[in-house]
């Protein structure tokens, strides 16, 4: 029904975009219906859960043209890498398949077991046990693989994890049941083994789904850096050299629109550069002869001649990448709560079951009965409810957070977010919106329509900011023709035989502004970087949760202090990436668990080193990669919400653990004294799992309450 119509036989390529703004069925219909009307687009398919659009298009059409087309439909879109999580997707699919097989086995074996429990005897019981075995053995062999493989890995490195008691329990229960079946015994535990696998696989699959759906496309850090540069030889001729072969002292020519491949000093030319990659600040920076420019910056307007000072691995960008790498190491030592629990739990279970076996042997019960009891202890204590305790709560919480504009990368991120006690905010792009916004007062509707018609033709940050703002106000572009962009100057066009233009004002000074000319009339449009509207409210909510906030900015002291005063926060300005990292390290040494919220690449090392970190979706790729969570849109509130929901998630997780342990304490004596039949084990297992799932579902309600 949504089948796209192929419009050409030419081979197409696929590009995927993340489109956070999709909210309803109308958005799906709009994108899927309107995009294929664009020349060169073969089809568009929306994945609403992941907020993604996959577009099949002509290779001649580039990502920017597609992003612009989506913007014209009213959706902000960012391209994402082709298949960043192909591997994890496969893992999830394998888990789901194993879950389906285990579910099939569980239902059919249960059907036979119920007949045995309700009184089948003699030849019928033996037949049913044999049938159960025929179904259960392949099912266990297939569905148990994820656990067996992980347990084997752990044992090989002489460690133990949650999967070791599970594997031993399942394998022993299956072996015992098989023995009972062959010798015509009374009890077989096939259904317990399969049911255990089913519930545990459900927990694993939930965990995988959560990681999958929130991990947005992540680009490699260095891919944005210019890959080559035009080197000017002594005779004035130019030749292109790859970034790796550049050397300090070379003179390179950087055309407008090109990104720099190395650090250097400008020898000739004046232009504006986009330093967003390094600072997160999207207002262009004016540079002239003598200014230093860094790799990764994009030259916006006029060609520059740059004498290189640092190349390859010595650039500021490479240095930041190295710092981030090192800072990220400490976080990988974090042990998740489920693993901490199982480290304490697994040895306990094994020794208890071994004790039961020895105790009954000493009491003279015979090895068969002793083994049955030991296995019953293993089965009843198998961490079925424990396996579900953490993933169910985290999946419900992350689902609730996604609906409120926050993507949490994985379960460990939620656990760390719950523990933070101090918050550090970057200024530009984090507390403020980070993109230049025009002040539109004093501009009539006609002027606005002309401004939009001009601005939508340029990729200059001011033009884009202006066009975005005007579109938000519902302005329809005027019919301006012959629009031309003059690099370094501005845009010109004709509107009803009047010359109109949007240009750089002649005398700029400190103020960021554009000049709109309509005939002889002139309008100055000033740009500001406003503070996020709910910043005060968010900070108050963090304070109510016992979290002190402060500003840690790389900006100049004057504007940073001004913002600090307005929001009532202590400020540390002029901080380099290294200094930011040091601030976080010293906080950690003092025993704090800091939360870092930042967007620029200069925040990257701090984001990677903080106990937990959050970045806005406008942040540089590398910062999003380093952060634990990404928030979408213009509100800051998701930051406060993330911490509140993370804390209530941990509360629920602890309740779940409490319940599972209480249940085990109650059930273990029954098993030890030999009262646990397969029927009791099956009932106990499913009831405890259902209680845990029901308890986790309460989170959706409480998260909803926290948001309102």
């Amino acid at each position, binding site marked *: *029904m949504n089948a796209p119509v192929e419009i050409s036989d030419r081979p197409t390529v696929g590009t995927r975009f993340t489109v956070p703004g999709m909210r309803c069925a*109308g958005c799906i219909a709009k994108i899927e*219906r309107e995009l294929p009307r664009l020349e060169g687009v073969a089809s568009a398919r*929306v*994945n*609403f859960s992941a907020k993604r659009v996959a577009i099949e298009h002509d290779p001649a059409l580039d990502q920017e043209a597609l992003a612009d087309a989506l913007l014209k439909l009213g959706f902000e879109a960012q391209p994402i890498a082709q298949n960043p999580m192909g591997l994890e997707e496969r893992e999830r699919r394998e888990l789901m398949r194993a879950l389906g097989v285990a579910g099939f086995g569980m239902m*059919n074996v249960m059907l036979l077991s119920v007949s045995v429990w309700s009184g089948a005897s003699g030849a019928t019981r033996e037949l049913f046990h044999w049938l159960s075995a025929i179904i259960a053995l392949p099912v266990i062999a297939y569905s148990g693989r994820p656990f067996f493989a992980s347990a084997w890995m752990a044992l090989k490195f002489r460690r133990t994890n949650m999967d070791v008691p599970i594997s031993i329990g399942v394998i022993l229960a299956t072996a015992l049941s098989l023995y009972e079946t062959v010798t015509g015994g009374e009890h077989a535990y096939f259904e317990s083994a399969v049911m255990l696998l089913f519930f545990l696989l459900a927990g694993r699959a939930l965990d995988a789904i959560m990681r999958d759906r929130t991990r947005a496309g992540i680009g490699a850090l260095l891919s944005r850096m210019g890959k080559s540069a035009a080197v000017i030889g002594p005779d004035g001729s130019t030749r292109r050299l790859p970034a790796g072969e550049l050397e300090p002292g070379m003179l390179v020519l950087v055309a407008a629109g090109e990104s720099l491949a190395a650090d250097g000093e400008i020898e000739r030319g004046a232009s504006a550069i986009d330093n967003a990659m390094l600072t997160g600040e999207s207002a262009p920076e004016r540079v002239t002869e003598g200014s230093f420019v860094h790799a990764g910056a994009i030259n916006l307007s006029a060609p520059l001649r740059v004498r290189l000072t640092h190349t390859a691995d010595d650039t500021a960008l490479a240095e930041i990448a190295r710092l981030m790498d090192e800072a990220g190491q400490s976080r990988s030592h974090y042990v998740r709560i489920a693993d901490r629990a199982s480290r304490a739990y697994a040895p306990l279970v094994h020794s208890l079951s071994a004790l039961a076996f020895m105790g009954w042997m000493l009491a003279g019960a015979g090895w068969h009965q002793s083994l049955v009891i030991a296995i019953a202890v293993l089965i009843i204590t198998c961490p079925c409810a424990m396996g579900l305790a953490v993933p169910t709560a985290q999946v419900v919480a992350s689902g609730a957070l996604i609906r409120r504009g926050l993507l949490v990368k994985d379960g460990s991120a939620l656990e760390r977010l719950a523990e933070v006690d101090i918050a550090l905010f970057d200024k530009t792009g984090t507390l403020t919106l980070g993109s230049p916004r025009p002040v539109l007062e004093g501009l009539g509707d006609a002027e606005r329509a002309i401004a939009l018609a001009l601005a939508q033709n340029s990729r200059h940050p001011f033009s884009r900011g202006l066009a975005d703002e005007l579109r938000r106000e519902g302005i329809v572009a005027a019919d301006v023709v012959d629009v031309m962009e003059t690099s370094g100057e501005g845009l010109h066009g004709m509107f009803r035989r009047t010359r109109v233009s949007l240009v750089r004002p002649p005398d700029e000074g400190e103020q960021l502004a554009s000049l709109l000319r309509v005939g002889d009339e002139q309008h100055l449009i000033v740009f500001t970087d406003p503070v996020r509207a709910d910043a005060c409210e968010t900070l108050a909510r963090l304070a109510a949760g016992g979290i002190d906030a402060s500003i840690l900015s790389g900006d100049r002291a004057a504007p940073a202090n001004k913002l600090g005063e307005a929001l009532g926060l202590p400020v540390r300005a002029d901080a380099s990436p290294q200094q930011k990292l040091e601030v976080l390290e010293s906080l950690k040494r003092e025993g704090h668990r800091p939360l870092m919220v930042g967007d620029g690449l200069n925040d990257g090392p701090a984001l990677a080193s903080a106990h937990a970190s959050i970045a806005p979706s406008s942040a540089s790729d590398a910062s999003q990669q380093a952060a634990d969570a990404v928030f979408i849109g213009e509100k800051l509130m998701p930051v406060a919400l993330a911490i509140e929901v993370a804390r209530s998630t941990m509360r629920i997780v602890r309740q779940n653990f409490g319940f599972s342990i209480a249940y085990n304490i109650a059930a273990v004596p029954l098993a030890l004294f030999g009262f646990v039949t397969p029927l009791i084990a099956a009932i106990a297992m499913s009831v405890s799992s259902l209680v845990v799932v029901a308890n986790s579902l309460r989170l959706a309600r409480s998260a909803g309450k926290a948001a309102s």
Partner: protein
Amino acid sequence: MTGLAFLIPIALLMGACGLAAFLWAMKSGQYDDMEGAANRILIDEDEEP
């Protein structure tokens, strides 16, 4: 007792059919976008050519 000879294979066959249907549905991507599927039912398709 002879009833079992029919009933058990039938039960197993039905279960296997259910499993096959689930695996097929997953392979063809029907579980990839649950929320989208819930929303698509609201899309009017009268305007389609």
